[in-house]
C-alpha cells in the first residue's frame, strides 16, 4: 500500500537529477536573498547605531564618511593623528588664530567638545581614551563619571561586555595600536546600553591613553604622543560654516557635519530609496519564477501519472497531498541547504566586515534567520508549485490517458 508521503519521497529520490537541480536552485536563491537581507539589516544598523546628539566630528584628513564611521560607530578607520592644540583651543573657548591672521572665537559656537583617541583594541572592540565630557553626551554624568577610573581602569560598553562575557574587576588584555604590545587593564565598570556603536567600545581616561601610547613607543615627529583620533563637537548649525572653512582650509584636520555625511553614506550604500530592499524583492521574485517554471515543467511530466492514479481509483486528495508534500520536502531540503550555505557565506562576510567594524559580528541571531529561511523555502516551494498542483488535480483523465 502506498501513501502520499511515500509517493512524494519516491518521486523525489528516483528523479534525482531533477530534484537536486530544483533544491539547489531554490537554496541558492534563498541564500542570495537571505544574505542581501542581512546586508541590508547591517547597513541599516550602521545608521541606527550612530549616536544622534553629535552635530560635528573633527578628524584627520581622510574623508568625511571615514571620519563619521570611525568616530560614531567605532569602526577601524582613519588611523591618522590630530594635534591636541586645535582640540584644546575649542575646548577652552579661546580664539582660534590661523597662520593667515584669521581669528574666530570658538566659545560663541561650540557647546561641548569631546576628545577621542584610539589607543588599541580588545579583540574587535576599540579602546578609546576620552574624558568626562563624553559621558555627559551619553547623559550618564552621575554614574559613569563617578566610576570613571583615575588609573588604567576601563569602562566598557554594555554590548562589548555581553559579547566578551566581561564583568567588573576582571582583567582584559588590550593590544596597543602602535606596536601590538599587550597590556592588562582592569574593568572598572560597565556602561548602561546606549543603543549605539559606542556600546561596543572600551573607554579609559585621556591621560591613561597618552600614557599607553607612550609605552607603545608611539612618537609623532611634531606632536609626540599628545594626539587625538577625533573630537566630537556639540554646537549650533550657524557656526558650522565658518569653522568648516577655517579648519578644512587651514589645518591638518577635517570637519564634518554629521547629518550631511550620514546622507552621503546612505546614498553611497544604496540605502537611499530602499534600493537594497528592491534588490531583495527582485531576487525573491526571480526565485519564485524559477520555482514556478521548474514545477510547471515537472507537473507536465506528471499529468499522465496523475490521470492514471485517478483512473485506477485514487482521489484528488491523494494527488493533491502528494504534490503538497513533495513541495514541502523540496522546501525543507532547500532551506536546510540554504541555512548551511548562508552560514558559511555570512561567516565569510562577517569576517570581512568585522575587520573594520564590530557590529556585524554581533548581529547574527541564528535561530531567527534559520526560521526565516525555512519559512521562505517552504512558502516559495508551495507558491511556485501551487498552479501546477491545481492543474494536476484538474487534469482531463481521458485525454491524458489517450494521448499520454
Amino acid at each position, binding site marked *: *500500500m*502506498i501513501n502520499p508521503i511515500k509517493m512524494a519521497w*519516491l*518521486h523525489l529520490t*528516483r*528523479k534525482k537529477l531533477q530534484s537536486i537541480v530544483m533544491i539547489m536552485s531554490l537554496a541558492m536563491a534563498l541564500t542570495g536573498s537571505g544574505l542581501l537581507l542581512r546586508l541590508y539589516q547591517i547597513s541599516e544598523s550602521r545608521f541606527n547605531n550612530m549616536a544622534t546628539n553629535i552635530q560635528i566630528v573633527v578628524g584627520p584628513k581622510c574623508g568625511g564618511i571615514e571620519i563619521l564611521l570611525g568616530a560614531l560607530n567605532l569602526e577601524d578607520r582613519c588611523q591618522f593623528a590630530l594635534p591636541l592644540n586645535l582640540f584644546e583651543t575649542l575646548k577652552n573657548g579661546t580664539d582660534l588664530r590661523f597662520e593667515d591672521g584669521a581669528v574666530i572665537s570658538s566659545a560663541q559656537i561650540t557647546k561641548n567638545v569631546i576628545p577621542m583617541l584610539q589607543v588599541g583594541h580588545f579583540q574587535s572592540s576599540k579602546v578609546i581614551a576620552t574624558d568626562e565630557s563624553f559621558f555627559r553626551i551619553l547623559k550618564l554624568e552621575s554614574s559613569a563619571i563617578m566610576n570613571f577610573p583615575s588609573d588604567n581602569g576601563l569602562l566598557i560598553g554594555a554590548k562589548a561586555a555581553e559579547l566578551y562575557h566581561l564583568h567588573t574587576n576582571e582583567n582584559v588584555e588590550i593590544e596597543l595600536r602602535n606596536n601590538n604590545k599587550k597590556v592588562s587593564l582592569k574593568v572598572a565598570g560597565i556602561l548602561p546600553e546606549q543603543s549605539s556603536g559606542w556600546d561596543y567600545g572600551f573607554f579609559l581616561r585621556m591621560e591613561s591613553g597618552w600614557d599607553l601610547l607612550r609605552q607603545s613607543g608611539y612618537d609623532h615627529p611634531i606632536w609626540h604622543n599628545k594626539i587625538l583620533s577625533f573630537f566630537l563637537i556639540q554646537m549650533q548649525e550657524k557656526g558650522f560654516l565658518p569653522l568648516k572653512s577655517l579648519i578644512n582650509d587651514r589645518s591638518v584636520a577635517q570637519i564634518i557635519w554629521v547629518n550631511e555625511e550620514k546622507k552621503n553614506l546612505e546614498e553611497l550604500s544604496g540605502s537611499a530609496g530602499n534600493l537594497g530592499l528592491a534588490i531583495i524583492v527582485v531576487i525573491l521574485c526571480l526565485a519564485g519564477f524559477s520555482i514556478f517554471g521548474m514545477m510547471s515543467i515537472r507537473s507536465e511530466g506528471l499529468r*499522465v*501519472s496523475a*490521470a*492514471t*492514479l*485517478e*483512473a*485506477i*481509483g*485514487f*482521489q*484528488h486528495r491523494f494527488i493533491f497531498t502528494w504534490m503538497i508534500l513533495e513541495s514541502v520536502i523540496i522546501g525543507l531540503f532547500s532551506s536546510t541547504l540554504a541555512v548551511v550555505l548562508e552560514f558559511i557565506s555570512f561567516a565569510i562576510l562577517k569576517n570581512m566586515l568585522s575587520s573594520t567594524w564590530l557590529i556585524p559580528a554581533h548581529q547574527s541571531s541564528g535561530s531567527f534567520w534559520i526560521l526565516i529561511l525555512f519559512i521562505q523555502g517552504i512558502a516559495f516551494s508551495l507558491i511556485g508549485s501551487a498552479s501546477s498542483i491545481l492543474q494536476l488535480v484538474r487534469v482531463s*483523465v*481521458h485525454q491524458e*490517458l*489517450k494521448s*499520454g
Partner: protein
Amino acid sequence: MHIEVSQLNISMGDFSLQVPQWSLPSNSHLLFEGPSGSGKTTFLHLLAGLLPFQNGEIKISGVSIKNLSGHDLIQFRRKNCGIIFQKIHLLPHLTLIENILLGCQNAHQAKQIDKLTENLQLTHRLNHLPSTLSLGETQRAAVARALISEPSLLLADEPTSGLDDANAERVMQLLVSSARNKSLIVVSHDARVRKFFEQKIDFREILK
C-alpha cells in the same frame, strides 16, 4: 455487473459517439472489435467514468455513473473496476511491485501479489523500474495492477499488444479466469484474442 447504456451522445471536436441502446448482462465476457478511430477506447473510458458526458445514461449494476459526484465516481471505480489501458501507463518512478500495489485496496489483496506475478512471470522483475523493463513485461504488470483488486468489472484496452504469443496466451487466460463470474470487456484488434470470447461484437454495430 450489469451494464446499460441508453441515448449516449458525446462530441469532442470532430469526433462524436452515439450509442442509442446497448446492454451487457452480468458476468458476461465481451470482445469489441472494430477499426481504429471508431471510438472503442472512448467508449471504454465512458463506461469507467473517465470521461464526463451530458447526454444519455450509463448504468452499472443500476448505478447511474453520471449522477455520481467526482469523489463517489472515483470510489465506485476503485471498488468495482479494473482497467488495463491501451498505453499501459505504469507510474515511471515506481517499481513494478509498487505499481501493482497501487491497485490494492487492502492487505488481503496485497497477499495475492506473489501468486499473480508468478502467473505472469514477473517475479524476478518486481523491483525494477518500468523504464528498465520490456514492453511485454510492463504490459503484464499493467494486467496485474488491474487484477490485484479482484474487480467485478474488468475493462481491457488492447491487453495483448506488445506481447509475444506465449505471453498473450498467458495474459488472456489469466484475464478470462480472473473474470470468472465477473464482467469482462476487452477491446482488441488482436486475432489471438478472439478464441477466448464467445461473444464478439464489431463496435460499429452498437453505434447509431
